[in-house]
């Protein structure tokens, strides 16, 4: 194993944001945002050249730090998975940077202020740490990288210093720390059993045996706690909904992708032969539960930011559906294939779309001074660009052609059909319907004509609006970007009868769900109908169960129980 040409780019992708933090901290005051701007541009250029290099050669880029080869040294590696994620993160960071320019930009002559100063530093910190997560080839370095992501993410939650956000941040930190300890425990056992922490070497040495199973179980649930997969999502809604919009976008679009990516790395690259199909079914089952509970509770929310936060929980669930679909024909090992590509695309489109959604929600809040969904009438007319950004992001998440989520759904549906796992086809389509439901719900409210006189609106920055629109568009047009490396016949004509029919069905289902579950009746005609009453009752039941799951003792017991369950499912493997 040797350093490949261009490997220096990997080091730079990690270090440039970190150096940006160091310089920003020293220069301080008004210079922070300039440092951030320069760093973002430099980082974008680095990632872009890395991507173009990988696209040409297709080989994994390797860099041996200090010239020491593993197991003694640490290697950085970037395959197509890492580069796709790095590219997506770079684009989203760019968008968020533009968006936050008006909130956190510097005022000439003013003294250094806390919130802008920390926001820009933490934005760069999150970026560098995530790049490290994507390229590190060593499980201990990855532990440090995960902690870096957490330490830079937590202060973003409570940037405005209100009591409730401080509480959300503390919950997030404590639960994330519990998760990282389980991850570290797994890494420690791996070293004890195999004498290395390098991903490539471990993949060669690891055998399906009890110690590997317990490691897989511990590390997986530890990472799930940090990703907030249902039922380990206790910290996410208050943390993501309470933060300032730009910070929410960072947290929801990017931070949780770090630990999700590590689950993918672990399952696909470290122990593809150790994990079993039944364990993958459990993982995807949790994902399905997340979609249902997250979406229903999202529909019951009365505030836009909480709705978007709960929709993140549902979308996180979607990201785990690919695991059982990515097994090889015999169901004995995970392979890189179309299902993984689909999952990756879903992650990228969620990153761009969710950032756009939080930005739009933040702009609405800034303009109105509140984000009560029921009182959003007339907003579409007053802020067309913002609402367009929200709608585009929503369409993209629903999987309308030509969004990335459409391609993702397509790839996963094919994988489900070819492996005979029809039940996941249902979940995949159902997930789109749920997404449609909350998009329809919000759009119906904002398009309404206001009853009274128009509310006075505060002006919001045009630049911020366009930043949101830019990310929404990115998400909607992702399929075109992905088609470079993928076969071209995957994207169908959106107006072909089959495609149009599916889209309409998704919308119809979504509208029905929105009608049934929204806290205030959407149409006067549906008020008090028996179906509506039943659905409302069901929605309230979901809310209660969500409240129960999100209590600390239940969530932490669930954490350990899931570890046991995963361990058992790995143990009870079918005989070869």
């Amino acid at each position, binding site marked *: 194993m040797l350093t490949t040409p261009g490997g220096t780019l990997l080091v730079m992708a990690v270090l440039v944001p970190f150096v940006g933090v160091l310089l920003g901290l020293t220069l301080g005051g008004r210079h922070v945002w300039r440092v951030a701007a320069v760093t973002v541009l430099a980082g974008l250029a680095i990632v872009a050249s890395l991507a173009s290099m990988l696209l040409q050669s297709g080989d994994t880029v390797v860099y041996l730090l200090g010239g020491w080869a593993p197991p003694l040294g640490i290697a950085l590696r970037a395959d197509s998975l890492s580069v796709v994620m790095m590219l997506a993160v770079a684009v989203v960071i760019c968008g968020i940077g533009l968006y936050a320019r008006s909130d956190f930009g510097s005022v000439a002559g003013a003294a250094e202020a806390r919130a802008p100063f920390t926001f820009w530093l933490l934005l760069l910190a999150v970026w560098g740490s995530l790049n490290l997560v994507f390229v590190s080839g060593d499980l201990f370095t990855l532990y440090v990288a995960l902690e870096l992501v957490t330490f830079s993410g937590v202060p973003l939650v409570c940037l405005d210093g209100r009591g409730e956000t401080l509480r959300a941040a503390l919950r997030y930190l404590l639960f994330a720390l519990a998760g990282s300890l389980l991850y570290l425990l797994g890494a420690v056992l791996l070293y004890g059993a195999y004498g290395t922490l390098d991903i490539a070497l471990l993949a060669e040495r690891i055998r399906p045996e009890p110690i590997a199973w317990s490691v897989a179980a511990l590390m997986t649930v530890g990472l799930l706690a940090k990703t907030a997969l249902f039922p380990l999502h206790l910290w996410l809604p208050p943390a993501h909904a309470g933060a300032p919009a730009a910070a929410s976008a960072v947290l929801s679009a990017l931070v949780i992708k770090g630990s999700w990516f590590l689950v993918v790395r672990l399952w696909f690259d470290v122990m593809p032969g150790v994990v079993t199909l039944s364990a993958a079914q459990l993982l995807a089952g949790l994902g399905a539960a997340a979609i249902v509970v997250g979406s229903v509770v999202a529909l019951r929310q009365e505030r836009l930011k909480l709705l978007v936060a709960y929709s993140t929980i549902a979308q996180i669930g979607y990201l785990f559906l690919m695991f059982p679909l990515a097994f090889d024909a015999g169901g004995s090992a995970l392979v890189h294939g179309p299902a993984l590509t689909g999952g990756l695309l879903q992650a990228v489109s969620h990153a761009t779309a969710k950032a756009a959604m939080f930005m739009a929600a933040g702009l609405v809040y800034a303009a109105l001074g509140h*984000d009560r969904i029921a009182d959003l009438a007339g907003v579409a007319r007053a802020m067309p660009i913002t609402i367009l950004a929200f709608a585009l992001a929503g369409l993209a998440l629903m999987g309308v052609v030509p969004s990335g989520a459409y391609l993702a759904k397509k790839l996963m549906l094919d994988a489900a059909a070819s492996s005979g796992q029809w039940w996941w086809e249902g979940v995949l389509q159902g997930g789109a319907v749920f997404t449609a439901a909350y998009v329809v719900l919000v759009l119906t409210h904002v398009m309404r004509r206001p009853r009274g006189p128009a509310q006075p609106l505060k002006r919001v920055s045009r630049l911020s609006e366009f930043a949101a629109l830019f990310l929404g568009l990115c998400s909607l047009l992702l399929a075109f970007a992905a088609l470079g490396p993928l076969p071209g016949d995957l994207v169908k004509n959106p107006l072909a009868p089959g495609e149009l029919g599916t889209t309409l069905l998704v919308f119809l289902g979504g509208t029905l769900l929105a009608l049934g579950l929204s806290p205030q009746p959407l149409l006067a005609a549906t008020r008090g109908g028996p179906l509506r009453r039943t659905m409302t009752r069901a929605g309230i039941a979901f809310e209660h169960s969500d409240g129960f799951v999100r209590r600390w003792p239940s969530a932490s017991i669930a954490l350990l129980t899931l570890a046991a369950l995963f361990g058992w499912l790995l143990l009870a493997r079918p005989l070869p």
Partner: protein
Amino acid sequence: MSAATLFGLCAAALIGIGLYGLIVNPHPLRKILAFNVVGSGVFMLFGAIARRGAAAGMGGDPVPQALLITGIVVAFSATALAVALLLRLFDETRSVSLASDAPDKTQPGVDDV
């Protein structure tokens, strides 16, 4: 029984004790304390593994021992951040309860400041 095995088992017990505290103690400070106990257990397990790897005239495998030093420092940073957060929460709200965060539906979207 060798010291490595003995302290390895001790580490397993420490992790269990700490996890119990992390689950049932409602006070955040006690959770932070429990986190440190679990962390000590994980570190001790790694130390036992390092001791098992004694070779080449060294009393233990130096790679895990070096990683442990990094791990202890990272755990300290986590503790410091958590304590700072907890104290600020206390200053701001005079309460440290983590429980009452269920989205309050009666509260309007505007903050009445």
